C-alpha cells in the first residue's frame, strides 16, 4: 500500500492549485482524479473569466478569495506560462430599471476594494463596443480572461514536475479514519494518507458521506455554452455581462471573448439531478442566441462551432436565492479531513487564494518545510502560430516536426502534439491533446486532424490505436479492425 502525507481528491482547478502550492514543501502528495485528465469536469467547462470580486458580499469567503486570487493571477501566468488577458468587463443596464443594480454592484465592489470601477454612459460604451447597446454600464477593468483548462493543466503539470503523484482514472470509493491516518479505497488499489483534502467538486458530498453524515446538500446547476467561429472575434473587445439573475444566484448569459479569438455565449442556468448529465439542449441553445442578441443585435445566427455545458456546485436552492458561501473547513469530528464544499463561480479566480488557505490549514496538522528544489515552470507552451518568423525558423531547424502542420484550422504542428503527449501527468486521450495544444478545436472540429493525431499517438506510445480513448475510460474511439485486417 502506498503511503502519502497528503491526498487530494479531485484534479480540478482547486485540487490542482492546492497540489501545486503543496509541492513547494517536503511532502509526499497524491492527487486522485477519476477522469482521464485533470480539468475534466467543471474546471474545463466554464467562462474562463478571472473575476474582479464585485458579485459577492463583503464578508463572504467568495469575495475574499476572489479578490485575493485575482491579484495573484498575473504572477502565476508569468510563472506557469498560461495565457491571461485583462480585457475588462462591462456590466450593462439594458433599461433604466437595471441601473440601480449597477450602482449596487459598484458599491459591493468598492466594499471589497475592487479598484477602477466606473459608470459609463451608453454612448461612451458604444465607442469602445460598437455592437453593444445599453443605457448605462459598469466598467470593471480588473476582470480578465484565461483558458481555464490550460490554467488547470499548468498547475497540475507543474505540481507533477515537483513530484506530486497524479493518479488518473482513479475514483475514490471509500474513506476511513484509522488511528492517525486515513485509508483511501480506489478502483486502483488502496492508499494511506495523513491528511485528506476533499476537492471533489460536484462529488464533494459523496466524499464527505464516506466518513460522516453530511450536514449539507449539493444542488447542481447546469450552464450551457455556445462557442462562435473566430471569424466573429471582432464583435466585442471586452466581456459583456447583463445584470445578474438574482433569483438563481448566477451571473446571467454573458458574451465573453476568449484568448484564442472565439466568443462564448452563456451560461444558462438549469437545476438538474445528475452530476454527469452534461448535455446541451435545443431549447437552451436557441435561448442563448436570443439572449445574446439582446446584447448584440448584429450577432450572426450561423456562427456556432461547438457547444458544451458545465455544472455549478451550489449549496443553496433557487428558492433560497441560489446564493451560499463556500465552506472551506476541517471536519470537526475527523481531524485531518479538509473539505472544500460548494466551490462554484468564482472558483477559478479563487483557486490560487484558496490553495494558500489550505496550506495554512495543513501547516497546523503537519510540519511544512519548504524545499529548495521547487521548480516553477517559467516557460509556457510554445505555439507555432503565435511565434515570430525567426522563432518558427529556429524551431524547424532544431526539429522538423515544427514544420509539419497537423491541425489546419488552428495551425498546430506535430511537435506541439508530441509535447502534449509527453505531459508529466500521463494523460493520453484525444481530449488531453486538444486541451493542451488546441488540435481539433477549430471550425472543422477535428475532421482533418483526428486521423493524424491517432497515428502520432500510436507511434509515440507504441500502442494499438484501436485502444485510443476520446476523453474518459470508456470513450473508445474505435471497434477493432476491419475484416480484411483481422488475419494479422
Amino acid at each position, binding site marked *: 500500500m502506498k503511503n502519502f502525507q497528503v491526498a487530494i481528491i479531485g484534479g480540478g482547478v482547486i485540487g490542482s492549485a492546492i497540489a501545486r502550492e503543496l509541492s513547494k514543501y517536503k511532502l509526499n502528495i497524491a492527487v486522485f482524479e477519476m477522469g482521464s485528465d485533470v480539468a475534466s469536469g467543471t474546471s474545463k467547462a466554464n467562462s474562463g473569466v478571472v473575476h474582479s470580486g464585485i458579485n459577492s458580499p463583503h464578508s463572504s469567503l467568495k469575495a475574499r478569495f476572489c479578490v485575493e486570487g485575482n491579484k495573484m493571477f498575473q504572477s502565476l501566468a508569468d510563472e506557469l506560462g498560461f495565457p491571461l488577458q485583462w480585457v475588462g468587463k462591462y456590466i450593462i443596464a439594458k433599461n433604466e430599471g437595471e441601473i440601480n443594480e449597477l450602482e449596487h454592484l459598484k458599491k459591493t465592489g468598492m466594499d471589497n476594494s475592487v479598484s477602477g470601477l466606473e459608470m459609463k454612459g451608453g454612448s461612451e460604451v458604444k465607442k469602445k463596443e460598437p455592437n453593444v447597446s445599453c443605457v448605462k454600464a459598469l466598467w470593471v477593468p480588473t476582470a480578465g480572461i484565461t483558458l481555464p483548462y490550460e490554467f488547470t493543466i499548468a498547475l497540475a503539470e507543474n505540481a507533477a514536475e515537483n513530484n506530486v503523484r497524479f493518479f488518473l482514472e482513479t475514483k475514490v470509493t471509500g474513506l476511513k479514519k484509522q488511528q492517525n491516518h486515513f485509508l483511501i479505497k480506489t478502483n486502483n488499489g488502496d492508499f494511506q494518507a495523513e491528511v485528506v483534502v476533499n476537492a471533489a467538486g460536484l462529488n464533494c458530498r459523496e466524499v464527505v458521506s464516506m466518513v460522516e453524515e453530511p450536514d449539507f446538500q449539493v444542488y447542481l446547476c447546469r450552464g450551457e455554452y455556445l462557442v462562435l467561429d473566430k*471569424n466573429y472575434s471582432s464583435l466585442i473587445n471586452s466581456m459583456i455581462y447583463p445584470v445578474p439573475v438574482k433569483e438563481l444566484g448566477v451571473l446571467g448569459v454573458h458574451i465573453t471573448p476568449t484568448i484564442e479569438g472565439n466568443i462564448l455565449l452563456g451560461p444558462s442556468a438549469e437545476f438538474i439531478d445528475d452530476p*454527469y448529465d*452534461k*448535455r*446541451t*439542449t*435545443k431549447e*437552451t*441553445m436557441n435561448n442563448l442566441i436570443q439572449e445574446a442578441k439582446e446584447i448584440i443585435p448584429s450577432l450572426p445566427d*450561423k456562427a*456556432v*462551432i*461547438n*457547444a*458544451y455545458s458545465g455544472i455549478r456546485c451550489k449549496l443553496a436552492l433557487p428558492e433560497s436565492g441560489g446564493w451560499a458561501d463556500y465552506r472551506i473547513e476541517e471536519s470537526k469530528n475527523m481531524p485531518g479531513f479538509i473539505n472544500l464544499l460548494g466551490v462554484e463561480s468564482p472558483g477559478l479566480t479563487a483557486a490560487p487564494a484558496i490553495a494558500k488557505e489550505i496550506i495554512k490549514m495543513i501547516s497546523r496538522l503537519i510540519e511544512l518545510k519548504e524545499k529548495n528544489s521547487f521548480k516553477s515552470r517559467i516557460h509556457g507552451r510554445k505555439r507555432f502560430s503565435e511565434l515570430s*518568423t*525567426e522563432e*518558427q*525558423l*529556429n524551431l*524547424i*531547424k532544431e526539429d*522538423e*516536426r515544427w*514544420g*509539419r*502542420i497537423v491541425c*489546419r484550422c488552428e*495551425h498546430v504542428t506535430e511537435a506541439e502534439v508530441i509535447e502534449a503527449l509527453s505531459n508529466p501527468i500521463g494523460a493520453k486521450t484525444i481530449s488531453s491533446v486538444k486541451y493542451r495544444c488546441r488540435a481539433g478545436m477549430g*471550425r*472543422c*472540429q*477535428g*475532421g*482533418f486532424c*483526428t*486521423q493524424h493525431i*491517432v*497515428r502520432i499517438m500510436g507511434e509515440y506510445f507504441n500502442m494499438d*490505436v*484501436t485502444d485510443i*480513448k*476520446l*476523453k*474518459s*475510460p*470508456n*470513450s*473508445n*474511439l*474505435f*471497434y*477493432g*479492425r*476491419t*475484416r*480484411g*485486417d483481422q488475419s494479422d
Partner: protein
Amino acid sequence: MVEPEGIKVIDHSADVVVIGGGPAGLAAAISAKESGAEHVVLLDRNSWLGGILPQCIHDGFGVEETGTSMTGPEYAEKYIEMAEKQDIDIMKETMVLQFDKRREITAVNKNGLHKIKASAIVLAMGCREKTRWNVMIPGDRPSGIYTAGVAQAFINLYNIMPGKNVIILGSGDVGLIMARRLKFEGANVLGVVEILPYASGLPRNVVQCLEDYDIPLFLNHTVTCINGKERVEQVIIAQVDKKMNVISGTEKKIECDTFLLSLGLIPENELANNVGIEIDSITGGPTVNQYFETTLSGVFACGNCLQVYDTVDVLATDAKNAGKSAAKNLTIQKKDKKIITKVAPGRGVRYVVPQIISEPGKVHLTLRAEKPRESSVLHVIADDKELLKKRLLWANPANMIGVDIDIPLEVMTTTQNLEVMLGDC
C-alpha cells in the same frame, strides 16, 4: 547583416502556384503547364497527392471524362503520373499559411518557411465536412460521432472500424457510400436519416448503396439528440413537417454506438477570406468570372473550394480551364472594366457559377436547382430579353446542371445583370 545559413526564409518565384494537390489542383497544375506556364508549383499539406481520392475506394470515377469507371485511387494515380511527367514542382507536407494581394505566398514545411512570389495563383483547397454544430444537434458529447469522411478515412486508409451499430444523418453521396462500406465490413447500418423529402445524394447511389442492401432511408426525419456519456448509446430521431420543424410526439430512440454525419461540405476558403477575396454566400466559394478568376486579380479558383461538385469528372474539366486561364493570366484588369455583367440565380435556381461575365463570347454556366422537378425549362434572361431557353428532362439539386451560352457584346453593353431561372414547361 548576413543571416546564418539555414535559418532564413526560402524565397521562390513561379508563374503559377496551385494551392492544393487534390483532383482539382492536379488538373489545374497539369493544364497550366500544358498551356505554356513555365514554372508551375503545386503545394499540398498532406504527405500524399490526390486529396480525398485515396480513401474513395469505390468506383464510378472518370466515367464521364474517359468512359472508364475507376476507383478514387486509380483516378488520382492517373493525374499524379501526368503531373510527375510534366515537370511540375511538387511540394508535399507544405501548408500555406497565407498569401497577400501581391500574390506572395507564405508556406511552411519541414525544411522551413517559404515565400513564393506567384504571377498567378490557383486556389484548389477543397472543402471540409459540416459538423453536428453546423446543424446544432444537442445532447451529450461522447466518442462515436464522426463525419462520414473521417469514418471513411479510418476504414479505408487505416483498416480501423469506427463503430458497429451505425446511424447516418444526411443522405449526401459520402453518407450513402459509407452506409454500404460499413455494411461490407460487417457493421449494422440501422438507417440513413434525411430531413428533406428526397435523398440529397445521386439517385444511382441511393439504389446501389441503400436499396441493394436493405438499408432503411428515413425521409422527412432528423436527429434531435445524441445520448451517451462516454460512447454514443442512442440517438433520437423524429419526423419533420414541411418547414423542417420537428413534429413533437414522433421522437423515436434508436440504440446505436456510432453516429455518422453526412451533412454536406463547406468550401475551405480561409486563405481567400483573409486576403479579402469576395465569397459567394450561397456557394461558399469565391465569386469568379468565366475564366475562374476571383475578385483578386491573378488569383483563380477551382474544385470544391469554388463550389461543391457532384463528380470529379466535371470538377476536373473546370479545373483544367482554371489552370489554363492562370497560365494565360486572363485578368479582368486587362479588359474594359465597364463591361462586367453579373449572373444571378432567379426563380427555381439556388446558385450559378460564374457569377461574373467579364468578356462577351461563349460561356459555360453551372447551376443547381432549388428542388427536384421533372421536365422543366431553363431560362437565361437579360433584362426582358431571353438569351436562352432550354428544355431539361429533369432537374435535381443533387445534379449540377451545365449549359453553354453565347453572350454577345451588345448584351453586355446594355445589361448589367443576367438572371438564370428554372420554370415549368
